């Protein structure tokens, strides 16, 4: 599972599961960058179908956000799935 790291303030771990095509996901990335927050993200739609499921990425998203929607942001140990 290859996450891309974006540098910034890393006092709390932020992980973003996103879609490369989604405007809300893009704005979430922009927001984090504007706030100078370090985060790791993975564009789930850019994985191969097998990688999405057999690699467990989608299951991981659902473990944090049962709806399996995007963007799903994991802040520290907190589970966050709502949009807007």
């Amino acid at each position, binding site marked *: 599972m290859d996450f891309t790291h974006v540098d910034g303030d890393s006092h709390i771990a932020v992980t973003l599961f996103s*879609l*490369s*095509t*989604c*405007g*809300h*996901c*893009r*704005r979430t990335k922009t927001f984090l960058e504007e706030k100078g927050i370090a985060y790791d993200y993975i564009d*789930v*739609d850019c994985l191969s*179908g097998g990688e*999405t*499921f057999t690699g467990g990425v*989608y299951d991981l998203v*659902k473990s944090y956000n*049962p*709806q*399996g*929607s*995007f963007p799903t942001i994991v802040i520290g140990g907190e589970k966050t799935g*709502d*949009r*807007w």
Partner: protein
Amino acid sequence: MITRFDIERKYLEIKQQAEPSGYHLNPDEDFAKELVHGILINEERYGFATCPCRLSVGPREDNIDIICPCDYRDQDIIDYGVCYCALYVSTGVAAGTTPVSCIPDRRPPLGELVSKETDNAKPSVLPEKQGLPFPVYRCRVCGYLCARTSPPRRPVRYAVPHRIGLRSILNKPVHILRHGRRWTFSKLCS
């Protein structure tokens, strides 16, 4: 390679189809064009133009409910003022008079989708929710709407020559619509 020209052309095409039908695109034009870009990427990647904010997995028939405009658009606009990705918005949201709130995804998570046979019987707008005399069904191939007690099961004798918006259907209780040789209907409400 998707160019800026492609995005502009698709945006205008969607807008020209939407507005005469009583739908509005997101007034944030840059945001709307980002979504259109996502739709074009999906079309190029998968061969069908799925919602940019949902994960497409599998063949077209497994994703037909999220081909834009998705099956969930009408009910989401009624309930939340926007569709899930917010490309389409209500009149109030377009005018800036209605605030936008958090919108959950009506589509069940992947792996929990119900059978297509069950889907076909479900209307896109339920009458009791909107005070309508009939449920409204939307053709999932072309987007045509019809209001009747149950979805048509076979092709009928005449077709409506253009897309019908929800507003016009409220004034005409029954429309019988045809799309090629088969009928398909959206599921929105569970």
